[in-house]
């Protein structure tokens, strides 16, 4: 999957590094480093991290994010 962090927005709250530590890591107190192309197995953690970002700085590829949203919509229609 693909993602990018707008580091102008990022203020170092580190929520992503708590919730998806294999994708986002803090370098010192505030600098964020991340894998922009993590394995699909990280999807759940990445979406959790993106949602928890207090400044909404994490953009996940629309198709990757939609996979989960579609499943969501599909499930509710199916029910």
């Amino acid at each position: 999957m693909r993602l990018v962090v707008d580091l102008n927005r990022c203020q170092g709250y580190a929520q992503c590094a708590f919730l998806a530590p294999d994708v986002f890591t803090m370098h010192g107190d505030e600098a964020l480093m991340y894998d922009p192309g993590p394995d699909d197995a990280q999807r759940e953690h990445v979406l959790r991290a993106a949602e928890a970002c207090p400044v909404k700085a994490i953009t996940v590829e629309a198709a990757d994010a939609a996979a989960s949203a579609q499943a969501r919509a599909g499930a509710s229609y199916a029910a």
Partner: protein
Amino acid sequence: MPLDGSLQRLRREGHIVVVGASLAGLRAAETLREEGFSGTLTMIGDEPQEPYDRPPLSKQVLLGKVPADHTALPRRRAIDAQWRLGTAATGLDLHAKRVHLSDGSSVEYDRLLITTGVRARPWPNELEADLDGVFVLRTVDDATRLHHRLKAGPRRVLVIGAGFTGSEIASACREQQLPVTVAERGAAPLVGALGAVVGEVAAELQREHGVDLRCGVQVTGLEGDQAGRLRCAHLSDGSTVEADIAVVSLGATRNTEWLAGSGLGAGPRGIACDAGCRAFDVRGIVTDDVFVAGDVARSPHPLFGYQFLSLEHWGNAVAQAEVAAHNMINSSADRRPHVWTPSFWSAQFGVNIKSVGVPPMGEEIIVTQGSLSDRRFTAVYGYRGRVIAAVTFDQAKWLDFYQRQIEQAAPFPPPYPSVDRRPDGMRPVPAGFPDPSLPSHGPTVTLSGHSPADRRVSFTPMRA
């Protein structure tokens, strides 16, 4: 507002060409589709890769934490474009509305967006630049090659130029325990971007992390062995640095050569455009069908005396691309100005450095929070009695406040107390920027006067 017939036709079946398939080009394309453009969209890029993100190249990728091919940019939506990747634009015919390409073909446009960005300034001596072991770092290929060489364990890495990229490279090397020498012409690292006061903090940071930092020197020559491999570098102070890798980090050159003779107001400092991202021609007349965004653009900014501003900033590329795309398919009354406040970040030696505004305009600086010696502080730059910029080291959560101060042209020095004000932050001191008329690789924001034609290569900034 109802669209007139020609605009409706443009939106429905027009042809928009984007030259430059990186961050700005991609975000513009997405915005065009988002706003209902359903015509033909052609994306032209000289690199073979689909759009990717560059900031990780000098950090995660060099550290080997992320493979270089992991940096492809996420798509915010499908853009349904015709891609012409690996094909450079070589010329522009404003009359025929046609872009010429390196493969001999050409494409016509109804609207053109230029987002060709910048490239790394190469080592000026071509023979020396060709030595094995001499690198620049701008593209994913550069990063891949450099990472492989770093992994092989060189004896010593020489970084030429201690701007942001050079400093980040040095940081990545030290984190991998590689011996590093940094040679910087200025008095300190980052001096062109942040001035000597903050530059001194950056210098301490580098030395503390084991960088052999040499300031006030120039690399006068690179020397190879008989096999054509870099062996050492000669410095202007007479010393020699034995190194098998040299990374040339002397800033960037704008990709405007392909526009020479086109009649567009393009030159070494970029392509001049108005606040609505419309390009100027050489006569200073604004065009109606050619737009510019990203690092290659220079546009007037109301906060900074309407001087033309060139920004090598990630966030500017995104914001300007969105404005340009919007304006390309809207009538003049619905157009928006691009009035983004310059913002920048860098991560090096475990410190998060962020800035807002235009630090190089600053005459004086005052530390309003924290202290320089803790490497954890907020400093504010003043210009003619008002706040013009701010920089934080590991204090990003306060930066929004200072951005508002800049946008409101708040008085400098700040007349109010703040939390964590230290004794050394009671009085402003000279910010210590080098003479701006000297060529510098440092600043990421460049003020380039009031002339849209950009005929002058040198310029006089307002504060000189």
